[in-house]
């Protein structure tokens, strides 16, 4: 119905503007000549650093205390340690530098001058700061393993712990058992050729290595969009579990304003509208069972006690994922690194022809192009997304990405795109036979939505398996078919039992 013609000459609605609006002098000190323009405002080099540290603290510190409304000005008392997700890219390198200056080396230049030296603000906030790097070279045979480089780099910062993981750990029961001190979780595989994603149990005698499982999983993905999305999800969930393992209440990621805008638009384009909030900040609980805790505290108290004792001695509860650079654009990150002499290792380009064809890459290209002509676009996107919230109640967590998911997805899908004339096909398979009911919309799309342009080959040679192994955490959120113990049964019925007197 629109009359818009895509072949347009020039920018008819939003004309290109001058880089700075009024003056060349710094808007803050009004004396020095400016060195950087941040969305039409000019800053000098001296005023730039406090601006960035201020934005960083403002991005992180309001969520440090468990209760957001506590006396944060005087006391930052987190519930646990801090985990820094580090990829080697610009954002996470700047984040690491800021975390180190503000909380580890206690660099005075990063602190506000008011309040005196003994102000409680100058006390250490985090007991332990751990840096976690997830090596993804397992996904691409031609990619170099950079773990030693990263380890060496992180070692140049004093007082930080370092943990390195590999992408294939997501398929390694040994890693899972080490993190969760349990070995009873069953592992699953799924038939990725149908929408239904029929589940099967992975034989405990399965001989495929975690790396082979990773290869099977990635090679089964239908589009160039699905591969980077799946890798991102694996990395994120690996980081979440590492946060649990290191007793960290907070996981910080180096997502800049620009990358946040990209991930929001890319998320919307992949059907992740329900999780926009989590894209910005999220609070994660170990698995669906624990997430249901709040609503079912009474009923599941017994079960929970069991779980807690399994991880005895550890901090219980949640991991808060924060992106403290969400107000700092890519350009500002780059200048911080340059002016503070921070070396950037950089990310290794993906040796894969599909790397630029996916929705994520297309979005990045589109947004960075738009940012050049309309510098306010990225912050507008982020601001808009902070003004919306998910609609309706959540129906638990997605088994794959561990984010809240909504109900009734399959009915919605079969109503708006009919795939069968036979009504019997519409009845969903039982929850134990199919992965689909345990997935959020976006993860289901990632695994099943096809294109006439299939994903370019990753050059992997996975073993020929009819069923593709799923990440180790997929088992933990599934309903267990195990029988209730006598004790549990008694708890259910005890209110109705007459006491023998």
């Amino acid at each position, binding site marked *: 119905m629109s009359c818009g013609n895509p072949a347009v000459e020039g920018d008819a609605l939003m004309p290109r503007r001058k880089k700075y609006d009024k003056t060349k002098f710094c808007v803050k000190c009004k004396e020095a000549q400016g060195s950087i323009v941040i969305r039409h405002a000019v800053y000098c080099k001296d005023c730039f650093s406090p601006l960035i540290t201020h934005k960083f603290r403002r991005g992180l510190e309001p969520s440090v205390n468990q209760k957001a409304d506590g006396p944060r000005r005087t006391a930052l008392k987190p519930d646990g340690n801090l985990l820094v997700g580090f990829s080697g890219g610009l954002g996470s390198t700047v984040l690491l530098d800021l975390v180190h200056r503000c909380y580890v080396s206690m660099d005075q230049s990063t602190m506000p001058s008011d309040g005196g030296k003994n102000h409680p603000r100058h006390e250490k906030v985090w007991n332990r700061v751990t840096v976690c790097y997830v090596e993804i070279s397992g996904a691409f045979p031609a990619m170099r393993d950079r773990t030693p480089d990263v380890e060496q780099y992180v070692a140049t910062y004093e007082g930080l712990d370092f943990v390195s993981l590999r992408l294939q750990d997501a398929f390694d029961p040994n890693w899972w058992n080490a993190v969760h001190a349990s070995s009873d979780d069953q592992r699953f595989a799924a038939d990725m050729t149908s929408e239904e994603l029929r589940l099967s149990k992975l034989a405990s005698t399965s001989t495929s290595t975690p790396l082979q499982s990773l290869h099977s999983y990635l090679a089964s993905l239908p589009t160039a969009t699905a591969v980077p999305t799946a890798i991102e999800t694996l990395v994120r969930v690996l980081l979440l579990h590492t946060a649990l393992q290191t007793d960290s209440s907070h996981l910080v990621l180096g997502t800049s304003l620009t990358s946040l805008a990209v991930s929001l638009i890319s998320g*919307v384009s992949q059907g992740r509208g*329900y999780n926009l909030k989590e894209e910005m900040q999220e609070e994660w609980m170990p698995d669906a069972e624990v997430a249901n805790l709040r609503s079912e505290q009474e009923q599941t108290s017994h079960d929970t006690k069991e779980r807690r004792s399994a991880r005895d001695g550890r901090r219980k509860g949640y991991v808060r994922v924060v992106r403290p650079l969400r107000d700092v654009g890519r350009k500002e990150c780059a200048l911080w690194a340059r002016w503070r002499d921070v070396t950037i290792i950089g990310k290794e380009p993906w040796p894969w022809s599909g790397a630029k064809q*996916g929705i994520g890459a297309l979005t990045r290209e589109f947004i960075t192009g738009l940012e050049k002509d309309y510098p306010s676009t990225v912050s507008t*996107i982020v601001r*808009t997304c902070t003004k919306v919230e998910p609609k309706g109640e959540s129906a638990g967590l997605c088994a794959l990405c561990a984010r809240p998911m909504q109900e009734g997805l399959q009915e919605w899908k079969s109503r*708006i795109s009919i795939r069968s004339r036979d009504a019997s096909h519409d009845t969903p398979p039982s929850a134990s036979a199919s992965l689909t009911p345990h997935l959020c919309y976006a993860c289901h799309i990632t695994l099943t939505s096809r294109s006439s342009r299939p994903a370019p080959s990753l050059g992997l040679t996975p073993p*020929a398996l009819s069923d593709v192994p799923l990440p180790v955490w997929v088992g933990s959120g599934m309903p267990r078919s195990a029988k209730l113990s006598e004790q549990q049964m008694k708890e259910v019925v005890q209110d109705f039992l007459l006491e023998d007197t």
Partner: protein
Amino acid sequence: MTSPHPHLGIRDLLQTIMPPRLCALCHDARAILKRPKTGQQICKECFFWVFETEVHNTITEAKLFKPGDRVAIGASGGKDSTVLAHVMKTLNDRYEYGLELFLLSIDEGITGYRDDSLETVKRNQQQYDMPLKILSYDELYGWTMDAIVSQIGKKNNCTFCGVFRRQALDRGAASLHVDHIVTGHNADDIAETVLMNIMRGDIARLGRCTLICTQGEDTIKRSKPFKYAYEKEIVMYAYFKKLDYFSTECIYSPDAYRGHARAFLKDLEAARPSAIIDIIHSGEMFEVKEEVKATQKSQKTCKRCGYMSSNELCKACTLLEGLERGMAAAAVTERARKKLDAEGPAPESLRTIPFFQQSRGPHPSVALERPT
């Protein structure tokens, strides 16, 4: 040929080389097309069936109509509205909705574009046997788009056309005494609007752009039965049904920002065809926070023409005043608006839009062109 999935079995490999020829839905007839929405290879009859049934599902799920409703189809003569008229008629007969259907066209006054497409609408009137009402910008506002463009140039002209069309449709519908206007907005349009509203920060529109039906306090219902229909499938439907439609882009087209969003959406669709539905799904899954809603302006009535408005004057009256006083930018930029106000109040003799009243009588208050 190398398979992109090296672990596939021989059967899958054969299927890749020699695609199955049978329809994936009826397993009977020969498949002749690949559905853009699902990628399934299906036959012509099944395509008609799924396309129509999906629209029917959309209509029934949202409970859009009740028996006896008078419904106007916003008809431009283009593919979307032509297919909409055809499908609405088909479904109304097949499922006995009991609707009284009308065609409502707006003549923007664009020589070489709208006059030609209106000829198509007049033919549709005959073909579908529906009463037609044409309302022109000239009649309502005293300005044709040709005259507007000659004053303001091509830049921003879509702002005028869009605002004027919306109000003209409501006024046309009111004169037909209809309860409901259906428009041919398709899934691509809606996905594009979701992206655009996020990028422009238009929170009010973002909240309502995925709604299938919008209704203000006293305005006529508007809905989009093609909300989940892919543009490509609408063209396909028109092609196989040999429907008569007019397919030329407007000659005063540029809306640069929408153009950006549209080009981006096409890239996304090429990467993964489900992207269009996925974006709409995203849009349906969030809503504007209550505390943000509280800061939004409440709806008022325009003091000059009685149409719904978020300010003292509705957008159409502001635009018209700017045109009449030779300061067309007044409603487009804040600065120009201030300049206009500084020149004093609107003169008494200013041409205005007739006062809007939604009459609810049993009979249309305007003469209709009956199909002959």
